């Protein structure tokens, strides 16, 4: 249903009027780290949500609106995503599910 709604004309037009913030994605064994530049956006004006397999970022500054959607890999643990906004920069931590994290297995002697 959501995908259908997206295709209506007015929705498309509104999206074009929005700015696409530049994004960096970093990764380590434990998580993905997403960093987005959105100058003018204060903490209360940024919204991050997971919609199925997409991470949706929406924000509002006194000058413009920002909107960005990214595909999230299945390894991400959606329950533990956290986000913070500081000095116009959004950071989102996307931890990986346990089965996707490397695990050290102790080798025991007998």
């Amino acid at each position, binding site marked *: 249903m959501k995908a259908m709604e997206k295709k209506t004309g007015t929705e498309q037009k509104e999206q074009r009027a929005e700015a696409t913030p*530049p*994004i*960096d*994605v*970093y*990764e*380590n064994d434990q998580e*993905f*780290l997403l*960093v*987005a*530049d*959105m*100058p*003018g*956006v*204060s903490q209360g004006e940024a919204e991050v949500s997971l919609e199925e397999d997409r991470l949706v970022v929406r924000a509002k*500054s006194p000058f413009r609106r920002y909107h960005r959607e990214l595909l999230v890999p299945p390894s991400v643990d959606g329950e533990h995503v956290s986000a913070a906004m500081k*000095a*116009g*920069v959004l950071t989102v931590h996307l931890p990986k599910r346990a089965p996707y994290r490397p695990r050290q297995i102790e080798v025991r002697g007998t």
Partner: protein
Amino acid sequence: MFEYRGLLDRPPRDIFGWEDLFRGFDRFVRDFDRELTSFGYVPSEITEEDGRFVLRVEAPGLTEKDVKVDLNGGVLTVSAQRPLEVPKGYGARRRERTETRFSRSFVLGDKIDPEKATADMKDGVLTVMVPKAAGQQRKSIAIKAS
């Protein structure tokens, strides 16, 4: 012969009618943009409101400690630097953000009040306000019927 020495220089005495031409050019620079010299791209906007100049610069990730604002001889200069490093212990998967490194200067002229200028950094946006000198502000004059 006339030698062009930069935007700040006054045109020479008007012998060949250059003065009007250059006044026009000077005006174009001052009114349209007010920008003098710069390096590095940074989204910025300077507006002339009633009674003051307002400069707004987008500098995400920067705090008041990273930005330098200088007002000297009617020229406003804003500069800053933000190196972009991969966070420790992470590998980069996608990099779209760019390093912030800029210096931009704007000619405001001498009819300003530098003492009352203010600069404020909030949510990665720098706002500099420079009031015009008293007497330079627009004033409407009431017309009395007689």
